[in-house]
């Protein structure tokens, strides 16, 4: 049974078609890369799945349920922009999530804060961008969700932090959950994906397992991506 099922999804912002006739079925127990240039519709797709945008047409099911309160409880979403109130300290944000989500594991989250070398008592507004991203990742991974939607988790962080984030994603992997990792930085990340979806101008241009792409094309996913999208851009 698919964990995420999308049938004929269409989403417009005014006259602009942002997602077009999308069909997609994804099972649990995978880390899926959602890759595409900026503006291809990745964030829009993730927001729809996270239940934050309801103005679309098509059929979407998460864990067999239509989008709503039940699916929001199953989905843990890491947005591109940090959204935690900056007057809070790290531990306040953790307590807030702990109150709000029944699947939140406070002990695990506090351990993760320590591993990421964040001070629980530090005020968010005094934290660097990289530190805020690590905190947000902790909040998202502290939940025992069925679906994790990560929007550009490694964008704008240094290589050491990137490595720490990728380790956290791999530690979080389970056969019972599905992780979708949206990024435009494929090269160093494709190795953690089971499969990738190439999104271009709101359409799925390619969807296959990473190793199958390498076998078929004799190239890395990153190289295939560049070829596919340079064709599209020059049209």
């Amino acid at each position, binding site marked *: 049974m698919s964990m995420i099922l999308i049938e004929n999804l269409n989403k417009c912002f005014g006259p602009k078609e942002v997602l077009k006739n999308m069909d997609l079925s994804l099972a649990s127990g995978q880390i899926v890369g959602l890759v595409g240039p900026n503006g291809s519709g990745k964030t829009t797709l993730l927001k729809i799945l996270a239940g934050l945008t309801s103005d679309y047409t098509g059929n979407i099911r998460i864990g067999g349920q239509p989008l709503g309160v039940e699916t929001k409880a199953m989905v843990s979403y890491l947005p591109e922009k940090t959204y935690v109130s900056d007057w809070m300290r790290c531990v306040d944000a953790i307590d807030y999530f702990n109150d709000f989500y029944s699947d939140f594991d406070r002990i695990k989250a506090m351990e993760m804060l320590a591993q990421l070398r964040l001070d629980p008592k530090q005020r968010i507004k005094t934290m660097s961008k990289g530190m805020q991203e690590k905190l947000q990742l902790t909040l998202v991974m502290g939940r025992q969700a069925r679906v994790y939607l990560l929007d550009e988790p490694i964008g704008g962080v240094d290589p050491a932090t990137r490595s720490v984030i990728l380790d956290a994603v*791999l530690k979080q992997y389970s056969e019972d959950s599905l992780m979708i990792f949206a990024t435009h930085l494929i090269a160093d990340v494709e190795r953690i994906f089971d499969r990738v979806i190439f999104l271009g101008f709101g359409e799925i241009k390619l969807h296959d397992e*990473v*190793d199958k792409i*390498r076998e078929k094309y004799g*190239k890395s996913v990153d190289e295939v991506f560049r070829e596919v999208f340079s064709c599209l851009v020059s049209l």
Partner: protein
Amino acid sequence: MIEEFDDKTPIYLQLVNIFKMSIANGTWPIGGRVDTVRDLAIQYQVNPNTVQRSLSELERENLVFSERTSGRYITKDAGVVREIRTNLAAKKISEYAEQMSLLGFGSDEILAMTARYLSEGNIGG
């Protein structure tokens, strides 16, 4: 340091070679326990299903076997380990010999230069 993979070949196949190397040189000791899929995935920063696939391939080749409840173990057969070591060495030697001959060196020269390098640390003038 995170292992670098080449771009061209499937990652699971590259992992199979890396693991075979570990078995050949004893980093993965004969009869020893193989780390869990999760630990290996984190160690090599690779997808867990890819690790699983590589380990299944090693099982297929009888280099590793599964104990139903306690996990995976490296073969206890020293002969098998010797064989992988020999096969990996043969591959390296044939690549080396071919590249040296592409440089225009004959067999006698290759032998002499190699012997000199191994005993003195340089190949002379």
